[in-house]
């Protein structure tokens, strides 16, 4: 039964199972290499997504699985992210006490979940995919169970994740109950046929609950509290995958629900989205200011980014959605570069400072490894939204979409709200400059640099860094191709 549709996912799951099995016959000292093997295999899958003939748009499995441009975009996105994360994991391998192969395999399973999420077309698929991701991350987050921080992060993620799941299922129940169907297009059709449905209290309540739950995935207010703790406590590659993969999965599901299932309601809840976006941006930016722990800082920065993603959503136009995709594309390289550097640097300084992952660890990095220093600097600058890097163009597009809504004649009622939102967004950008440059400053100009030994870099790590840097610069300097792609995808999917 149209199994070929899920060929990529099947490949990923099989790869994960294969890793678990291979572990049995691989001597411990060579297990680290399994990660690279997995990364290479994923690279093949990624190549396959370009080579294999792919249907333009296809629905399968009782309408629950949708293969369209958006799905393909996100599948490739997740694959790239997972490849880089796997490389990062091999760099991290020394700090994993046991279960290295499982460490790799779980990432693959999470990846499969994300890829399924990209194609979810009804609430059952949404729920199942999201849970596959979340449960995998519970384990991954607490993978370093010798470290108390890792365990605490896991527990925090667990409780809040389960809470959001609770909201999710109750929301799904209400939406299903009032509309009588689980499928996104059918819900849209029902609303089309009977407009009063969209205004029914229970239906709206259900949608809000679902939104809140998806907000957890992308770390948006009011479900953002976990992010800093979990980013800080989790093993670095896991934080990276959370920041990129899990967040993007939340975004794609949010898009599917809001734009496919309830396009009408999305318009009604614009104010809600705006408030969420604004508060998220402010919360993330303001709380990041006093942080000294780099991973925690990135946690808050990821909250702020979630706010920007919501900003694009609350623009309520297709350009906003396209901007979201673009922003995510840049975010992928930027954040992964940052975490890769953190991963490598903290490895070589592990145990030397009482405060792990402190920003101070980067003191003198430019002398120890210019490549790492460059990559981290570029990442920070890109996150801050400074040209000519990817982050700048992403934020530019997002702001453009919002300004577009603000000045469009259809949205006169919301005009002042949009202006406020823009102001908030700008404030966020300005504040973020401050703390991102704090990191840059630490890299180049911190005082009292102790250790100046050079940091060795493995070939895969080096290559990944080059890829990230190239991605950041290319997307910032020559945004044309990706923008055309995202525009095309969005226009084709959401009409």
């Amino acid at each position, binding site marked *: 039964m149209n199994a070929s549709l899920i060929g990529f996912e099947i490949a990923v799951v099989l790869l994960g199972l294969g890793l678990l099995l291979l572990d049995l016959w691989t001597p411990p000292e060579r297990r680290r290499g399994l990660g690279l093997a997995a990364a290479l295999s994923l690279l093949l899958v990624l190549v396959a997504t370009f080579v294999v003939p792919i249907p333009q748009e296809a629905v399968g499995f009782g309408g629950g699985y949708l293969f369209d441009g958006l799905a393909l975009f996100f599948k490739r996105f997740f694959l790239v992210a997972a490849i880089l994360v796997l490389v990062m994991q091999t760099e991290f391998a020394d700090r994993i006490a046991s279960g290295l192969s499982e460490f790799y395999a779980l990432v693959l399973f999470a990846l499969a979940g994300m890829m399924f999420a990209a194609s979810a077309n009804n609430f059952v698929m949404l729920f199942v995919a999201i849970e596959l991701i979340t449960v995998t991350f519970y384990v991954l987050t607490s993978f370093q169970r010798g470290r108390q921080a890792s365990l605490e992060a896991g527990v925090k993620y667990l409780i809040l994740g389960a809470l959001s799941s609770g909201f999710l299922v109750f929301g799904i129940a209400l939406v299903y109950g009032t509309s009588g169907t689980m499928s996104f297009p059918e819900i849209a059709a029902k609303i089309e046929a009977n407009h009063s449905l969209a205004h029914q209290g229970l239906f709206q309540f259900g949608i809000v609950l679902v939104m809140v739950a998806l907000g957890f995935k992308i770390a948006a207010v009011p479900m953002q509290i976990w992010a800093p703790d979990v980013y800080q406590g989790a093993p670095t590659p896991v934080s990276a995958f959370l920041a990129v993969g899990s967040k993007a999965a939340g975004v794609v599901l949010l898009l599917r629900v809001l734009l496919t299932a309830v396009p009408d309601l999305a318009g009604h809840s614009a104010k809600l989205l705006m408030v969420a976006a604004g508060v998220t941006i402010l919360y993330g930016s303001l709380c990041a200011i006093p942080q000294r722990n780099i991973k925690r800082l990135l946690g808050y920065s990821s909250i702020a980014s979630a706010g920007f993603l919501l900003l694009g959503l609350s623009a309520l136009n297709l350009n906003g959605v396209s901007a979201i995709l673009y922003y995510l594309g840049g975010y992928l390289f930027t954040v992964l570069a940052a975490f890769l550097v953190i991963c490598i640097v903290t490895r070589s300084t592990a145990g030397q400072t009482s405060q792990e992952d402190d920003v101070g660890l980067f003191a003198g990095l*430019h002398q120890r490894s210019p490549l790492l220093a*460059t990559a981290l600097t570029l990442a920070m*600058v890109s996150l801050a939204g*400074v*040209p*000519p890097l990817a982050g*700048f163009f992403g934020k*530019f597009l997002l*702001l*453009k979409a919002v*300004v*577009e809504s*603000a*000045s*469009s004649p259809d949205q006169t009622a919301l005009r002042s709200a949009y202006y406020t939102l*823009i102001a908030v967004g*700008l404030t966020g*950008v*300005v504040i973020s*400059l*401050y703390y991102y*440059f704090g990191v*840059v*400053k630490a890299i*180049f*100009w911190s005082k009292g640099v102790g250790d100046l030994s050079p940091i060795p870099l493995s070939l895969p790590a080096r290559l990944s860094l080059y890829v990230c840097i190239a991605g950041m610069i290319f997307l910032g300097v*020559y*945004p*044309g191709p990706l*923008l*055309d792609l995202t*525009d095309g995808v969005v226009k084709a999917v959401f009409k």
Partner: protein
Amino acid sequence: MSLLTHILGWPLLAALLLAFVPRNFRFLTRLIALAATFTSAVLAVVMFVKFDTAAATEYQFVEKLPWVASLGINYHVGVDGLNVGLVLMGALVAFAACCCAWEVQEREKEFYILLLAMTGGILGAFASLDVFFLYFFHELALVPTFIMIGVWGRGEEKDYATFKITLYLSIGALLALIGLLALYLQMPEGKRTFDLVSMTEHFRGKAMDGSAQQFIFPLLLFGFGILVSLWPFHTWAPLGYGSAPTPTAMLHAGVLKKFGLYGLIRIALPMMPEGAAMWMQWLALLCLGNIIYCGLVAMKQKDLNLLIGNSSVAHMGFVFLGIASLNVLGVTGAVLVMIAHGFLAALSFGLSGYLYQQTKTLEMEKLGGLLRQMPFFGAALVMAAMAGCGLPGFANFAGEALVFFGAWTEFRVVTIIAVWGALVIGAVYMLRAVRNVLHGSLPEQWHAVKDVATPWRRLPFALLLGALLLFGFYPALLTRKIEPVVKQIVKDARAVLKPSVTVGVKNLSE
């Protein structure tokens, strides 16, 4: 490739190249930086000479490449009478700043990379005919500024200054960005483009919606205004310049700051006449704040750098006044002042930087009698002070005179006050500075200071002074190019004003 692309491309290329030069090749580093800025300066001069003054309203040396087709973003550079002088000024100042960069002794590699990036950004910002790239290049120049101040800056308030300048300028830039985006979105769907030329054409043919103008114009005015240290958003400037390393201060105060003014003249005025008509009165009042208030503050300064910083803010007042007058004389004068002040500010900061290098202090009370010790330096400083006061013979005079003539027809009271401020206050603080630094008895501790000795070191100062004098004695070199363009802009900007209001007096070049 167009000459312009070369002018702005070489510094950027050199920045990239420097990234691969080993850290300890210090000579090579500096050589590359100097060569790149020198090339662009020479090319800029070539461009200036080859510029066809007769066709000043046309864009020349144009290069246009599609960049992001779906959004209508193009790499589009070109100069007309308005920005040709600015590009020249930028390139010259960049070269001078690069020459002055010898004071930086640590982490030279990073410094030069940032300096070159900034140079490229500045030149790109002035040469771009695409709104997106305009902003893009400006940001590219702005961010290195923050870093350079934060890292190589001096003084106890360095961190605070960095923070403040970052905050202010980012806010200003982002406000402007929103304004520009809104502008872009005012174009009808399907025809949307960031191309400045087409946008201007479009709005010339079909005026923008009034309410949109009321909204966008202040965004641009204050966004750009903050970038130019419009009173009361000017406080970042003296502080920032006081803490900045010399080349940065030269480049920023001299060139980058003019970007906001350029944006106002190039974008805001012609496209949004209604907005301009409404806000120009206020601008005229605010610019008094710059001229008088900041002039008075400058008088109180004990630190030479802060004094120059404040005076630079005060000078911006003249430009604002010229723009506010919204007639050919005033705006032409404003552009002239922009260029003249670019050279002047660079010169002043370069000199004060040299002094600081020698004495490690800029407190005027501790200095004195240095003229005897450093004749070249003294002479240059005196001339800079004279230019700052607006004495004839320097380019500033020409510009300021035009501004006052232009403004006189529009706001008499304001002009009177401004003239008084310019002549009296400006003269007072400049001359006091000269007296305190150069004259009087030479304190014991400064017996060892050395003058700018080698021709090599003198080059930047000589170059800037030369430019000031050249355009001072022969302003038509610029005005002839500027004026036709300004005429068109003023015509656009005045489109909605009552015809009874005079449109300029007469052509200057006649």
